[in-house]
């Protein structure tokens, strides 16, 4: 029996649901389960320089390959350079890195996601109305790109007026307080809410309820497709949650990485390649793989919830 | 409403169990070592109920250490302690309190942001409904406890608003109000004026009549002879002698304490007529008003007043610790416009403050750093401190002042009270001031060292420099001053020349 392939996964932070799902999916990848791959997950604690340090550690330990979910698109490049310099292949997942030394990247386009979520709300409003936007931590790549998408949509819909845009740092509690304040400042004027992630959209929904506003009457959108968001969609309170397929991004990343390590004979084991027929495997040699966004709606929510249940039960 | 006492009923049943030895406290062969110092070696002490046992000795002799062992603050290395015939071994002050030992500590230990009453009854607050403090009751009790010492203060006043003397009195009242079998008084009078001392003596007599045993530590031997029945002498941690006070006298005690004779007030100076410091109509709102005097080169000006007369406040304003609201100060013919102590220092003035712990020492620093802090600038080369230079001057100053310490690197907080005072004095002497202002400079200083300080003061003014000496010890002021400025309630009551000054004349102005 060969020695296992040692893979490190450096993720930006493990304290929120999305990366937790991503990590679980990775740990359940068949190659990990059957012992072909020995996986170590590094928690970047939301800090670019911590991630950089972890790359140095992985290089010291001579890992065979690295999956990288950077906190910052620019700062990630330095970390990739460290690994590339040691001849270790790095595959990006979920968040982009501005580096030409990256072996490949699999993820969903955040600009597109931001655009899609905004358009969803605008359409529900019939292209007319006032909205507020809740942002992620200012300066983080996901916030920058989703904002870019939000803005593209705003330009296309001249009838939509943005009343306020404030950060709530991906947090349900912060979004709740922000939204309460917005509702006071713009009494009866807010027609829709764009939350750059689901947690914040959920906070806004609680604020609507607390103010005595029926959340089913106010279109909201979020990104990620966390479990509570699916439940809210099912309850009709949350209108659009865009599923960022954590499982696909994680499994796909490992498949691509293994193709680089083992060679073109490697057959991908991830379920995504059948789920998204539009994504072509191409021997794992593409520079970029785009996992499509899936809008969670009343139609598919039950099915998706079941899958989620399967992923979260230990 | 009864005065709550901080001990269990079991411990108070002394009638049921009379002490066989006749001693309420019996200490045998106690030793204690600190890193680098043998503070106590084989010390014994017996106290009879209803008597005052004085404990005397030089600074650093081990008096306070012995007391801290009695109350369970320090653990002894060896020796036996029996309280009312029962061997005891406290490791928490609370146990000692419960067993009937209370203490007035040498260093003030007030809790500044709490009221007088709260300080007095800390740890034994009268309660109502079982859980809540009975404030009216507590305040009434506090008034009563203070009345024992003729102290009239609002019980809800914050402790930090009191003067040092008042705090000291509150602490005394607190120790007394515990109704303990043994009350330890570690230099209770060092911050008090004569009148307050009289009240204290009266209280002690009352306590004696009640059968309380008192351990009385003081460097003022007059007090020892006035109040004590027996006296024990410690030197360098050793037990030297114990005897009834009637069997010895002042000189005898001093010989036992320091092993030689002590001198009186060695006054040698003759003031010139060249003015050094001219103060005109100096006023600081709410503290003192219209103070004017001239200090000449070679002169010692005493400042006397009862507690709260404003002596300290005047000195603080002269040194720019606080700012006077009006009036002028001329130093060596130049109008002084200092706004900070550092500027006053640069003008060759020096101030030794009254409360060495609060405003004198930097407790977490070493003896060396404490002494050198004001003169570091003089020992630098290319901006770096010359450790050698500093070490040399500090060593020689410590020798001059006979500071007892393990080494100059010892933290100053571990020195005995009197030695700490010498460190502050040393710091200012190193600045080579031409005007030295002293606020209660011999507080807590032993007889030998006191004489040294007096001798030093005389030598200092002999060189044409000047001293302002604020003190509430009348003999000291009378003995050392060329003239005496008497203050009363923040105003000048008059200036007496050495010839005019007598105890009666001064007190007449002060009261």
């Amino acid at each position, binding site marked *: 029996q060969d020695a296992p392939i040692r893979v490190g996964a450096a993720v930006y932070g*493990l*304290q*929120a*649901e999305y990366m*937790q799902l991503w990590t679980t999916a990775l740990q359940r990848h068949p190659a990990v389960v059957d012992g072909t791959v020995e996986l170590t997950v590094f928690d970047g604690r939301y800090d670019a320089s911590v991630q950089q340090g972890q790359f140095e550690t992985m290089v010291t330990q001579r890992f065979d390959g690295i999956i990288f979910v950077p906190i910052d698109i620019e700062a990630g490049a330095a970390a990739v350079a460290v690994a590339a310099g040691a001849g270790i292949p790095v595959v990006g997942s979920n968040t982009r890195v501005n580096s030409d030394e990256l072996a490949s990247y699999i993820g969903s386009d955040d600009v597109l996601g931001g655009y899609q979520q905004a358009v969803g709300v605008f359409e529900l409003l019939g292209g007319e109305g006032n909205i507020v936007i809740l*942002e992620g931590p*200012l300066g983080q790549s996901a916030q920058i790109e989703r904002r870019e998408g939000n803005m593209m949509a705003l330009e296309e819909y001249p009838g939509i007026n943005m009343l*306020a*845009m*404030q*950060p709530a740092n991906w*947090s*349900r*509690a912060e979004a*709740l*307080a*922000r939204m*309460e*304040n*917005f509702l*006071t*400042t713009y*009494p009866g004027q807010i027609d829709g809410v764009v939350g750059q992630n689901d947690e914040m959209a*959920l*906070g806004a929904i*609680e604020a609507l*309820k*607390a*103010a005595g506003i029926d959340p089913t009457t106010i279109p909201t959108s979020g990104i990620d497709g966390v*479990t*509570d968001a699916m*439940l809210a969609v099912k309850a009709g309170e949350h209108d659009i949650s865009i599923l960022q397929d954590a499982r696909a991004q994680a499994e796909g990343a490992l498949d691509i990485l293994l193709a680089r390590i083992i060679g073109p004979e490697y057959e991908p084991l991830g379920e995504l390649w059948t789920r998204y027929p539009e994504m072509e495997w191409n021997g794992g040699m593409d520079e970029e793989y785009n996992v499509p966004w899936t809008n969670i709606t009343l139609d598919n929510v039950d099915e998706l919830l079941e899958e989620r249940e399967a992923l*979260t039960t*230990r | 409403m009864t005065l709550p006492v*901080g001990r269990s009923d079991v411990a108070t049943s002394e009638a049921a169990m009379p002490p066989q030895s006749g001693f309420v406290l019996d200490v045998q062969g106690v030793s204690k070592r600190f890193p680098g110092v043998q503070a106590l070696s084989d010390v014994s002490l017996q106290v009879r109920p209803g008597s005052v046992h004085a404990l005397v000795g030089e600074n650093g002799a081990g008096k306070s250490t012995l007391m801290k062992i009695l*109350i369970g*603050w320090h653990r002894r290395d060896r020796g036996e302690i029996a309280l009312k015939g029962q061997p005891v071994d406290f490791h*928490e*002050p*609370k146990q000692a*309190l*419960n067993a009937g030992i209370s*203490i007035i*500590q040498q260093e003030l*230990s*007030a*809790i*500044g*942001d*709490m009221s007088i009453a*709260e300080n007095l009854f*800390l*740890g*034994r*607050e009268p*309660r109502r409904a079982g*859980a*809540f*403090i009975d404030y009216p009751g507590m305040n009434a009790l506090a008034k009563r406890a203070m009345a024992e010492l003729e102290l009239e203060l609002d019980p809800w006043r914050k402790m930090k608003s009191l003067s040092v003397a008042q705090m000291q009195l509150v602490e005394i009242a*607190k120790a007394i109000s515990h109704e303990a079998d043994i009350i330890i008084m570690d230099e209770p009078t060092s911050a008090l004026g004569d009148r307050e001392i009289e009240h204290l003596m009266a209280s002690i007599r009352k306590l004696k009549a009640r059968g309380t045993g008192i351990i009385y530590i003081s460097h003022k031997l007059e007090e020892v002879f006035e109040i004590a029945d027996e006296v024990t002498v410690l030197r360098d941690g050793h037990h030297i002698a114990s005897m009834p006070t009637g069997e010895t006298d002042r000189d005898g005690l001093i010989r036992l304490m320091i092993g030689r004779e002590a001198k009186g007030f060695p006054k040698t100076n003759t003031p010139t007529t060249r003015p050094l410091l001219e103060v005109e109509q100096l006023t600081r709102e709410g503290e003192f008003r219209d103070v004017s005097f001239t200090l000449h080169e070679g002169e010692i000006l005493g400042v006397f007043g009862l507690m709260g007369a404003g002596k300290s406040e005047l000195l603080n304003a002269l040194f720019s610790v606080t700012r006077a609201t009006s009036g002028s100060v001329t130093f060596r013919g130049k109008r002084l416009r200092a706004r900070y102590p550092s500027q006053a220092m640069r003008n060759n003035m020096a101030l030794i403050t009254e409360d060495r712990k609060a405003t004198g020492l930097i407790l977490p620093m070493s003896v060396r750093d404490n002494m050198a802090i004001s003169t570091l600038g003089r020992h630098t080369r290319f901006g770096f401190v010359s450790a050698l230079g500093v070490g040399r001057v500090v060593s020689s100053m410590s020798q001059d002042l006979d500071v007892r310490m393990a080494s100059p690197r010892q933290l100053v907080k571990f020195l005995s009270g009197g030695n700490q005072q010498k460190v502050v004095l040393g710091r200012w002497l190193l600045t080579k001031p031409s005007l030295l202002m002293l606020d209660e400079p011999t507080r807590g200083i032993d007889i030998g060292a006191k004489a040294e300080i007096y001798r030093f003061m005389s030598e200092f003014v002999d060189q044409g420099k000047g001293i302002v000496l604020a003190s509430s010890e009348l003999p000291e002021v009378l003995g050392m001053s060329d003239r005496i400025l008497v203050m009363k309630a923040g105003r000048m009551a008059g200036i007496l020349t050495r010839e005019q000054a007598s105890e009666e004349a001064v007190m007449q102005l002060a009261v």
Partner: protein
Amino acid sequence: MKQARSLRIRIFLIENGIIIAFILLVVALTLSSEFFLTGPNIRNVLRQASINGLLAIGMTFVILTAGIDLSVGSVLAFGGMIAAIFASSSLGEQYPLYVALPMGLAAGTVLGMVNGSLVAFFRVPPFVVTLGMLSIARGLTLISSDGMPVSRLSPEYIYVGQGMLAGIPVPVLIFFGVLGLAWLLLYQTPFGRYVYAVGGNEEAARISGVNTRMVKFTVYAISGCLAALGGIILSARTTAGLPQAGVAYELDAIAAVVIGGTSLAGGQGRLFGTLIGVLIIAVVNNGLDLLGVSAYYQLTFKGAIIVAAVLLDSMRQR
């Protein structure tokens, strides 16, 4: 008599100069936003203040003893998570409120007691102990929830965060109830005096027979318990136990205490000041949103306003 009262008010204002800063702030916001001084907004501000308020009350006890509790944010998350686990169906069934609440409070109190023991009995500096606990409690929260929000809480549980009683939000009622109890404890019982005494002069307190270690132990337990209570309210308000709840809350809690004039050196300060500190922070956060100040400038203004408020206070005191 009348003079005495006006003097008393003056002394009160000098001792609590920060209240003037608070009043100025309220006046300025009232003039610049028509919404600020309205019933619903006041309700919002108080509701938003209540969680930080609970933390700050506990923190006041701790800081008065010259300690500090950096772990409140994480302990809040842990207490809220444990309660949420019991109030959700994670354990198979939704336990009733009288089980979920005590479990959450107990979880926080136990962590507080661990802090307290290390500080009081093992004499580890409070900063280190509670910084360690900040990390430990967060880890425990993540472990107990597997890093996922715990939702689907029972309606009675959610009522604790979202309900109203007589027109007043339940969290606000809880906050003021706890404030009242804390006031009694701090100012009317011997224990309260010991808290001040330990912070003011620990040696003197010990020599006076105060069980200083027990006092220190207890204040951390109180802080842990109140943090958990805050966590319960937060999870009920957001309808889920959130693994990353309460991150950096310790800073706001300590800030409220210090803005309120309590000294980090211990022994000095007032619960009333803490209340004002809590309100100032809440009002600034709310007001900047009401005025529609843009995100980058909000951060800058928020810092500047808080410093200015305390500056005003310290200028007055001279």
